[in-house]
């Protein structure tokens, strides 16, 4: 049965994706493969395949049925055990806790009232039991297409509620006898503390990341750079690390005179503990399980191969928690491991020098992970091959062993850390250089999230790439296929035959994205934004939430948008243009169009200053200015004067898009509406309601005259201004206008082909 367990694993996977929520394309692809195996497999392998398909289905069903909550929303007091380390970021404390009674996991949040309380991070060790007053709320759902869905994310970790603590103090907590797991977590924290108190400053983050899988100390800029270069996996503990640590330890045990058998047995004991110390991420668990299986197989005289070990570890992990399937880290880890194992004959094709082998392995891993990267991160890196070729040996042969050895020795002789000083110097420069390179053009190519049909295409080409390279023993067919694979991910987004007008849900604020078909133009009217909020230094989080970085940029990335032909900033208010400056660095913006005179106001002035830094041209939107792009027509219809007086001087854009007449009214109020009516014989199909549906806009008079059929109100959920006002809604309904609201529907999108279009929303 050697090498046949893989079919059991594929069977299990197929069963699982039918039991769990999954993409149709993934189901279709696996089902097609299952059919193929059904025809071709013989004997035992066939029965194993079917049996595990069944087991997979049952496992999925079992977990789906059990992954439910018995708790209810509301205020109350809960007795909970801290099941994982507490994290404090600025003035926010968060932790995963388990209720003592129902044993249900909760995501705990607490806003620390004082700086002194940041000590809680150290004091609340895993295993502590606390009584916490607070409110149970459902976690937030994704409000825009392709956005990160916190609710789903937590549910896949069996967490259904977030507990917003109203008070939390050490006095309401007591520690109990730790379970062995909690004890290991406590060691981990001690280890990280040891790094913080002994290692050179700039090596602390990398040491914590490499030795304990704790990336929280690493700078955002470094993380971003590593992400863009496709080497972020180096900062996560991966199979590579586990392999290295295993061999280092094994070698060490043999050197101190243990027999091979004793050394192996010792490793079998140590590795599970290590996987917890390292944070227990999927790649670590995978690698540890595989290593354990291989070590155990020595006892049974080597009855299975690495491929079998991989397959068995997959089956075990899936039996334990099938929801791991959804994690990008898990997908990458298994997909790349499988690909490397199946590619041994491809790797043999390359001249067997060290560099040749490294290059072959890197190439296989890069290609293997591509579909997952495209789906989860909407981009691929052109430099990642080279970057990996340099950084993988750098990290695995130098950084990790050095840090590990010094770390262990520093317990015996703390002075040894001095040896790290010259290395810290070198490392600082390498890191700086890395950040620099990641800013070069094409470091990351944005493709957008592949649609389902693209995914199937990509999956097929992915498989063919490997099969054909192997069959024809050359890289030419593979590189052609690879090229088409990337093109098929890239082109449909760039030259979509469908156009879109999207009212992005940016909370309280406006952001309207117009994407014309065939790449004829991308326009963004306003960006949304948050009112700035003064914070003391200790309160500041490592990464504060911003509309630009957390909503808009991921949104554009997921849509494959890298260029804005116009960024129209209607007027100088935070909720309309606050996030604009966060876009300049990442998007290519052809021009900024602002309301005449609005640059006198502080928010706009600041925005323009930032734009200058990135050489983004800024100009006034001129009254009656028009432009045409493909079949779409645009005209600026307000304001008529150059004196900026606030909302009523919002740039208002009239447009004909997808055969419909639109008015994007900005924050226009009654006065500007009246003026508009006097200047134009207005006839509108779809109205972007002025000023988020405030009572002072969208007058009776305006509605009778303009007579829109549909209206979109962009307002934040539970916003403090209580927009949209009930009267406005009534007025619209009276005029039989269909209303779309971002506060209720999430993102609202009008998709059109030619002159036909329909509205769709994220929430029904």
């Amino acid at each position, binding site marked *: 049965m*050697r090498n046949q367990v893989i079919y059991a694993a594929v069977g299990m996977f197929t069963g699982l994706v039918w039991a769990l929520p999954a993409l149709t394309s993934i189901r279709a692809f696996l089902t097609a493969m299952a059919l193929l195996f059904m025809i*071709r497999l013989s004997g035992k392998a066939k029965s194993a395949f079917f049996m595990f398909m069944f087991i997979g289905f049952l496992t999925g069903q079992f977990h789906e049925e059990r992954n439910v909550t018995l708790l209810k929303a509301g205020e109350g007091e809960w007795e909970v055990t801290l099941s994982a380390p507490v994290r404090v970021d600025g003035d926010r404390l968060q932790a995963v806790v388990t209720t003592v009674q129902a044993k249900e996991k909760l995501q705990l949040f607490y806003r620390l009232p004082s700086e002194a309380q940041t000590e809680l991070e150290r004091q609340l060790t895993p295993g502590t039991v606390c009584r916490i007053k607070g409110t149970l709320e459902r976690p937030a759902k994704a409000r825009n297409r392709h956005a990160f869905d916190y609710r789903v994310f937590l549910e896949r970790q069996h967490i259904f509620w977030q507990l917003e603590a109203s008070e939390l103090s050490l006095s309401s907590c007591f520690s109990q006898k730790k379970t062995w797991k909690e004890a290991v977590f406590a060691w981990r924290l001690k280890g990280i503390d040891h790094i913080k108190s002994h290692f050179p400053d700039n090596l602390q983050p990398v040491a914590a990341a490499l030795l304990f899988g704790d990336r929280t100390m690493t700078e955002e800029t470094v993380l971003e750079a590593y992400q863009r270069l496709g080497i972020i996996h180096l900062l996560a503990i991966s199979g590579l690390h586990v392999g290295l640590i295993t061999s280092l330890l094994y070698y060490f045990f043999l050197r101190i005179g243990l027999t091979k058998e004793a050394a192996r047995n010792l490793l079998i004991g140590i590795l599970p503990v290590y996987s917890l110390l390292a944070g227990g991420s999927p790649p670590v668990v995978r690698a540890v399980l595989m290593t354990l299986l291989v070590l155990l197989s020595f006892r049974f005289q080597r*009855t299975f*191969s690495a*491929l079998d070990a991989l397959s068995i570890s997959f089956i075990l992990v899936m039996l334990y928690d099938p929801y791991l399937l959804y994690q990008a880290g898990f997908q990458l880890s298994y997909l790349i491991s499988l690909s490397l194992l*199946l590619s041994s*004959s491809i790797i043999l094709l390359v001249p067997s020098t060290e560099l040749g082998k490294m290059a072959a392995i890197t190439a296989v891993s890069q290609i293997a992970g591509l579909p997952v990267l495209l789906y989860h991160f909407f981009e691929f890196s052109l430099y990642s091959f080279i970057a990996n070729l340099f950084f993988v040996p750098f990290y695995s042969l130098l950084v990790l062993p050095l840090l590990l050895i010094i770390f262990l020795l520093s317990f015996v002789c703390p002075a040894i850390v001095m040896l790290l000083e010259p290395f810290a110097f070198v490392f600082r420069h390498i890191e700086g250089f890395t950040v620099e390179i990641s800013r070069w053009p094409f470091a990351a190519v944005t493709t957008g999230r592949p649609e389902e049909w693209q995914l199937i295409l990509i999956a097929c080409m992915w*498989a063919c790439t*490997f*099969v054909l390279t192997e069959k024809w023993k050359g890289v030419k067919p593979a590189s052609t296929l690879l090229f088409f694979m990337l093109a098929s991910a890239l082109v449909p987004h760039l030259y979509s035959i469908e156009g879109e007008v999207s009212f992005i849900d940016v909370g309280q604020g406006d952001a309207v994205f117009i994407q014309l078909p065939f790449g004829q133009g991308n326009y963004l009217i306003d960006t949304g934004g948050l009112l700035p909020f003064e914070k003391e230094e200790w309160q500041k989080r490592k990464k504060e939430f911003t509309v630009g970085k957390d909503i808009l940029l991921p949104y554009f990335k997921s849509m494959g948008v890298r260029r804005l032909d116009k960024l129209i900033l209607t007027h100088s208010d935070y909720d309309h243009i606050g996030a604009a400056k966060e876009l300049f660095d990442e998007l290519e913006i052809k021009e900024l169009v602002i309301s005449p005179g609005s640059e006198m106001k502080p928010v706009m002035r600041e925005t323009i200053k930032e734009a200058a830094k990135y050489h983004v041209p800024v100009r006034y939107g001129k009254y009656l200015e028009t432009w045409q792009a493909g079949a779409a027509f645009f005209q600026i219809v307000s304001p008529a004067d150059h004196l900026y007086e606030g909302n009523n001087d919002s740039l208002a854009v009239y447009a004909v898009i997808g055969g419909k007449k639109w008015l994007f009214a900005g924050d226009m109020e009654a006065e500007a509406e009246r003026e508009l009516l006097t200047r134009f014989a207005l006839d509108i199909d779809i109205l972007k309601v002025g000023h988020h549906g405030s009572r002072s806009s969208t007058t009776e008079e305006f509605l009778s005259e303009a007579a829109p059929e549909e209206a979109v109100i962009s307002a934040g959920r539970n916003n403090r201004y209580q927009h949209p006002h009930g009267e406005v809604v009534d007025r619209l309904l009276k005029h039989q206008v269909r209303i779309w609201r971002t506060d209720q529907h999430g993102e609202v999108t009008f998709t059109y082909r030619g002159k036909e279009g329909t509205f769709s929303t994220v929430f029904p």
Partner: protein
Amino acid sequence: MSLCLLCEEETNRQMTWRQFFTLVELPLLCGKCLQPFERITGECCRLCSRPLAVLDASFSIDGVCHDCVRWEKESLYKGVLSGNVSLYMYNEAMKAFIARFKYRGDYLLAKAFAEEVRQAARKIPHDMVVPVPLSEERLRERGFNQAEALAREAGMKPVNVLERSHAEKQSKKSREERLRGAQVFRLKENSSVHRKTILLIDDIYTTGATVRYIAYVLKQAGAAGVTSLTLARGQGREREAVLEE
């Protein structure tokens, strides 16, 4: 547990992409051991599948190699052999392989390329498979007929219609002697190849003498056509090497 037939290591035997998707059996040799074997590809002599690429252009005429041209000039042998298909070059690896297989009697090696032999045989129209026979003496010495073993392991049903009288080793004769040499192959009594299209199996093709002698005998006995299939193809340079039984 199955090991590589050559190096008897199992770690080197990895599943490949094609096997994973198409579920063909794992090759019986590991990737490392398989690597030095050279499959015959590219343009070959239309008659004997000798690769023309390594041959000087002056040694082939119209896609037929010099040797075959000479054979076809012999009135006795003209047209007796419809063609020959060989799978691998007779390089160092193959030399060692065949030595181990037939001289040192590692019968299992007959399975190593069985799949390739089977596929090649499927492409050649035939209604009877005939292995090149050994003399009784040689058969006793080796214990099995390597040509028959190749055919059998490839799932064919070889029919022993021929016998061979023991004679001096082929390799010790000159070309002239071989061409004119006494016919050592005979049709067995009570066997008939009348109107049969025959696929002749052997381990190696060097000068083509053996298969042509046999083809001649078979044709005389009324066979409709004779094509030969051999595992290896000598480059012609190692004349001194093996055209033994």
